[in-house]
C-alpha cells in the first residue's frame, strides 16, 4: 500500500532559523515527489516538485531513494513561511498521476 508519513504534526521555529519538514514515503514503483503548501485562508497550491530540481521561496527538497525520504528544507525561515505543508508523492498509472497526501505539518515561524 502507498503511504506517506510526515512525522511532525506541528513545527515551530524562530525567524532566521533553519527549518526541515520531514517526509517519508512507501510506494511501489518510482513516484514523482511534490510538496504542497496551504497558507492561512488560501487554497492548496504546489510549492515544488522534485522533477524540476527547483528552489521556490528558498525551499529545496532532496530525494533520498535509499531512505525513501523527501524532506523539505529552508536555511533561514521567514514569518511568511508559516503555513500547512503537505508531502504528496504521485505515480503515473492509469494516466492519472494521482497524489497521495501526508497528513501535513503546520509550520509556525515566530518573530
Amino acid at each position, binding site marked *: 500500500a502507498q503511504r506517506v508519513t510526515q512525522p511532525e504534526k506541528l513545527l515551530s521555529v524562530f525567524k532566521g532559523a533553519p527549518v526541515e519538514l520531514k517526509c517519508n514515503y512507501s510506494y511501489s514503483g518510482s513516484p514523482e515527489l511534490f510538496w504542497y503548501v496551504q497558507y492561512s485562508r488560501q*487554497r*492548496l497550491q504546489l510549492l515544488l516538485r522534485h522533477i524540476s530540481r527547483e528552489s521556490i521561496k528558498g525551499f529545496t527538497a532532496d530525494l533520498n531513494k535509499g531512505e525513501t525520504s523527501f524532506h523539505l528544507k529552508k536555511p533561514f525561515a521567514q514569518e511568511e513561511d508559516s503555513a500547512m505543508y*503537505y508531502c*504528496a508523492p504521485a505515480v503515473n498509472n492509469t494516466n492519472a498521476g494521482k497524489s497521495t*497526501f501526508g497528513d*501535513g505539518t503546520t509550520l509556525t515561524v515566530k518573530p
Partner: protein
Amino acid sequence: GAGVSQSPRYKVAKRGQDVALRCDPISGHVSLFWYQQALGQGPEFLTYFQNEAQLDKSGLPSDRFFAERPEGSVSTLKIQRTQQEDSAVYLCASRYGTLEETQYFGPGTRLLVL
C-alpha cells in the same frame, strides 16, 4: 484567467439528504481530480477524470458517492443519503496534462452533515 472554482463553498445537510457539489476547472484542463479532506488530515483521492472519462474511481468510499463530468469540463460530485462521516472538505483540482504539470486546486466545499 480564473482558477478552479467550487460551489457551494459551505453546505449543511441533514443526515439522509442528498447533496451535489460542483467544480469548474480551469478552461482547457484535461485532468480533474476530487479529494476528500477530513479535519486534521491530508486530502484523500476520490476519483479522476480525463476529459469526460472517469478513469479511476477507486477512492470513492461507498456507492453513495457518484461523480460525473459529462462534457469534459464542469464536474459534479454527488453524495446520496449523507451520513455524519461524510462531513469533510471536498477539494477539486485540475491539471492541463501529464503528471509533471501543476495540479491547481479549488477552494473546496466544506460539508457538514448533522
